[in-house]
């Protein structure tokens, strides 16, 4: 146990590594706007108070206008607006905000939010349900003022900002992308699982994140000091000095190890006995391309293309897609860029697909199925990809969620038709463009030998494969603990797909979160894959461990493990091996092994 005490320690699922230490900032879903900074001098305290006065004045003027309108149309409800006007000037909100600005020398928005939370504390203690629910009026009024404040604030966020730890009940992938990365130290949420897309995004943005905490949003108050331990999946609320020092020290050691690993990131991943496996990166945003290069990844093994479609009423134009793909391809060149076609549906919803109202979207109209139905959207994307391939010649195309040969042929037919139309328009594309599929539906594993005859490569997508094979909804925290990538069934399926690909002479890669898990490297090497594709930040450490491993040893190890009966048994065995063989690369990360190897000798 770490030394010291804290007001509260919550255990969740660590989904993005690293330690974050800072102040909590609670965000409501759909209201993700961070405006938080300290004021460096007293004259700015006055400015903040003036801003607050102006914002309240404007809110009052707006409410009075509204009241005049209401008095004509709904006279019996006009008093509601009167209440709001009173609340606006109520000392619990108004005087309190001024007091907080003076006392803490912080900006008006932040002070108002704190005043609002203080008021909420008072309201929630009231027995009378009617009065308790009046807090929504207070919230409504404060939101009006906040909107006025942030409206003004847009031009003048130049003050010294303090970075915060975002606390939310849940964040959708779209919310997460909207977070201002430079102001977000860490993220903690009540809901979510290890491979939810929010987790994938925060991991790629290098923001320590713990999800599935169940009640952190309820327990933490904005402004409270907290520690996010993304390795151990722990959140420490209001630690004492001793505990805080422990985490500062740990943060420092982790940073030091990481710097050391990144220094050798350029070296290839070649085992002691000369087996080279390509290490590639999974990316979602154009912005991440820099991380691909910096971390020594050999190209992009998975470019997720959903981002440009999120929250749009209409799919993006071909030109938008073309320039996005082209920019990524040119930066990655001469390495390859594998573009996965649209994988929308399930938890990545656009405005359009959200309307389907399916009871079981994971098994519904999503991904390639949606594309084959929404023909025009699919064709537009394929045109954009093909056009870029003609210019940069470093593109591969990959269809997601293929469940059998019929579906693959349908997708390839559309691709052929799009190629034909480009030929007719005399638009160039790469004639040798490789076409592959994700192996992520159990049925695709069963017929992997048949599929291998009709594609240029396989990419085993373990996130969905685990979810579908084990029947575990990966964002459902009630069953998230059953999400076991090391389940013997999964290892056997990966082996079956890898062997089928090799026998057909096509290349096979693995691109799920599994690929970036250092602990699993001995097993992954044993499959003799051509490449692993992972979150760019995982690349340097994975490469380092591979350089100290051996293929022969890994093959023996995998053969042994394939006869094991449970994921737990396999995990324990891996931990022991990691501890014996790669101690210096795991010492700092004992938490992420789940269970400590018996031989480790360090208590936890």
């Amino acid at each position, binding site marked *: 146990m770490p030394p010291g005490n804290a007001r509260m320690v919550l255990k969740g699922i660590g989904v993005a590594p690293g330690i974050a230490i800072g102040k909590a900032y609670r965000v409501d879903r759909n209201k993700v706007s961070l405006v938080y900074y300290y004021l460096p001098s007293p004259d700015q305290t006055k400015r903040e108070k003036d801003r607050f006065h102006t914002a309240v004045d404007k809110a009052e003027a707006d409410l009075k206008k509204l009241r005049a309108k209401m008095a004509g149309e709904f006279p019996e409800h006009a008093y509601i607006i009167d209440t709001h006007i*009173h609340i606006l000037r109520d000392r619990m909100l108004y005087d309190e905000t001024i007091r907080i600005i003076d006392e803490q020398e912080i900006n008006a928005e932040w002070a108002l939010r704190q005043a609002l939370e203080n008021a909420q504390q*008072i309201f929630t203690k*009231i027995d*009378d349900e009617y009065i308790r629910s*009046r807090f929504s009026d207070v919230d409504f009024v404060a939101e009006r003022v906040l909107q006025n404040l942030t409206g003004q604030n847009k031009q003048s966020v130049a003050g010294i900002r303090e970075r915060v730890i975002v606390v939310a009940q849940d964040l959708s992938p779209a919310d997460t992308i909207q977070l201002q990365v430079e102001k977000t130290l860490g993220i903690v949420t009540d809901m979510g699982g290890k491979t939810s897309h929010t987790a994938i995004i925060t991991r790629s943005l290098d923001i320590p994140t713990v999800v599935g905490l169940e009640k952190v949003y309820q327990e933490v108050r904005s402004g409270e000091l907290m520690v996010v331990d993304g390795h151990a999946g722990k959140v420490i609320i209001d630690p004492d000095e001793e505990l805080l020092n422990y985490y500062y020290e740990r943060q420092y050691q982790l940073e030091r190890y990481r710097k050391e690993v990144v220094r050798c990131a350029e070296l290839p991943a070649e085992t002691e006995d000369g087996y080279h496996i390509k290490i590639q990166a999974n990316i979602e945003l154009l912005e991440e391309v820099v991380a691909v290069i910096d971390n020594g990844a050999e190209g992009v093994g998975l470019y997720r293309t959903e981002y440009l479609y999120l929250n749009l009423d209409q799919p993006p134009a071909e030109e938008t897609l073309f320039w996005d793909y082209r920019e990524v391809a040119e930066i990655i060149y001469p390495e390859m860029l594998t573009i996965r076609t649209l994988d929308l549906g399930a938890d990545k919803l656009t405005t359009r697909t959200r309307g389907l109202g399916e009871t079981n979207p994971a098994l519904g109209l999503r991904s390639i199925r949606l594309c084959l139905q929404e023909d025009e959207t699919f064709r537009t994307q394929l045109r954009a990809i093909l056009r870029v391939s003609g210019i940069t010649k470093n593109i591969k195309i990959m269809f997601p969620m293929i469940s059998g040969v019929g579906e693959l042929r349908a997708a390839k037919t559309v691709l052929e038709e799009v190629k034909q139309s480009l030929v007719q328009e005399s638009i160039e594309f790469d004639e040798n463009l490789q076409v592959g599929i994700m192996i992520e539906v159990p049925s695709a594993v069963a017929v992997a030998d048949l599929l291998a005859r009709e594609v240029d490569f396989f990419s085993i997508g373990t996130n969905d494969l685990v979810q579908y094979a084990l029947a575990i909804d990966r964002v459902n925290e009630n069953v998230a603990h059953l999400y076991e990538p090391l389940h013997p069934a999964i290892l056997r399926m990966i082996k079956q797909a890898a062997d089928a690909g090799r026998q057909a002479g096509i290349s096979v890669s693995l691109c799920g979160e599994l690929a970036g898990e250092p602990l699993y490297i001995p097993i992954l090497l044993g499959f003799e894959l051509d490449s692993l594709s992972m979150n760019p930040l995982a690349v340097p450490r994975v490469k380092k461990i591979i350089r100290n491993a051996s293929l022969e040893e890994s093959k023996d190890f995998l053969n042994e493990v394939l006869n094991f009966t449970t994921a737990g048994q396999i995990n324990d065995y891996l931990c022991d091996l990691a501890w014996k063989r790669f101690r210096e690369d795991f010492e700092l990360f004992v938490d992420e092994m789940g269970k400590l190897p018996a031989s480790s000798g360090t208590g936890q």
Partner: protein
Amino acid sequence: MVRKELTIRNKLGLHARAAAKIVQTSNQFQSNICIIKNGREANAKSMLDILTLSCPRGTRIELRAEGKDAAEALSALAVLFDNKFGEE
């Protein structure tokens, strides 16, 4: 200081509309005015204070006013309470 004891007699108690009226009336006076229930004190010029004091029908409260227009303030408020805030 001027004091007056009262029982809340309107049907809904000191809910939003009644509280708004109390604030409106109190704001016309310079005195400090408060409402006391079981030793807890609410500022009569604060809507949220009054609401969170939580006074349903039948609650015994005490009004207190301090300042040069204290007496006028209390009698104006007493009229409001007597008229049940214009509810019935």
